[in-house]
């Protein structure tokens, strides 16, 4: 929380704002972490009753990306896909998560179905969901070190065996 307090001043302007952009014709919303639950609650009442997907992206090697000017790019980005059955619309939220404070409020209370999805993000990216009932690893063994889908995590390739290749 202390980190957040430091950032608060810089982020104050854009934390509560919601910016709507379009990516290849798909609606994308950008908002801050503090405003996330509010916005999602609002979207839920607007009919986006199903949370299709929660995932994250590590933008370590790709800092330049399409973002509204007001949003400050951070290393991680949480991506939430919502679906409205009535309107037959999809909407996507992108939330910037800074590297030094990897916590996001959980969506579990609004969409119980995000439980496994958030655990997966936690497992593979190391982002913590504040208030999640079971924040443990889901795919990797429990004693695994590191978060595989981060860009600074090695793929772990070993050389393929050949008969005449050098070193085999």
């Amino acid at each position, binding site marked *: 929380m202390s980190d957040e307090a430091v950032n608060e001043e810089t982020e104050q302007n854009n934390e509560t704002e919601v910016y709507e952009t379009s990516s290849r014709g798909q609606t994308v919303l950008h908002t801050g972490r503090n405003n996330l639950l509010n916005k999602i609650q609002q979207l839920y009442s607007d009919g986006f009753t199903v949370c299709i997907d929660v995932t994250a992206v590590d933008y370590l090697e790709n800092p330049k990306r399409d973002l509204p000017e007001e949003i400050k790019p951070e290393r991680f980005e949480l991506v939430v896909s919502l679906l409205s059955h009535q309107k037959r619309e999809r909407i996507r939220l992108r939330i910037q998560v800074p590297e030094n404070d990897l916590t996001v409020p959980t969506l579990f209370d609004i969409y119980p179905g995000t439980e496994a999805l958030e655990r997966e993000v936690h497992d593979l990216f190391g982002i913590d969901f504040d208030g999640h009932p079971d924040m443990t690893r889901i795919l990797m*063994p429990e004693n695994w070190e*590191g978060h595989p889908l981060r860009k600074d995590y*090695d793929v*772990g390739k*070993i050389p*393929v065996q050949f008969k005449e290749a050098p070193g085999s």
Partner: protein
Amino acid sequence: MAKLPLLGDSKNIGEDGLAGMDHNFLTGKIEDLVKWSRARSMWPATFGLACCALEMMATGSAHYDLGRWGMEVFRASPRQADLMIVAGRVSQKMAPILRQVYDQMMEPKWVISMGVCASSGGMFNNYALVQGVDQIVPVDVYAPGCPPGPETLMHAILQLHQKVETGEIARRRNELNGGAGIIVEQRDGQTATKVVIGR
């Protein structure tokens, strides 16, 4: 054990079972019979992991029919199974369990590594998979393909049958010391791929 008349040198019988016995008129025939029966009644354990599991089950179904070799008896309990078909990719999380199931199987037991993912990791050359199941259990026959068609699996099984009947398997395992001979680079915080297990 002392050298028994008629039965030849039998000092290795404690370690190796019948295979450790010198050939003589009695064990020669018995061994043939045992090999014959083992090749004709090799019950596979249900060890399906991924894509290959579907092909393994398809091989057991009507179009291919493993039952022709008395192998339609897929045993769910590893205690009663003779053959483990590692059908699919083995993740780091699954590896200890694979070994456990193998240990639960009773001798004599055989392993077919079905598909490239089990044999070497296949196209998934990454952190998550064990790059070759032969680092965990001794593999007798490798079936290539992703997934191997039922014919490939049947070819592998037939090859195994043949080896069992000629006794080549036991010899080969001794030569290779069971392991795969792959050296995997150590990566931080991961231990599962390191061990090359012997016989």
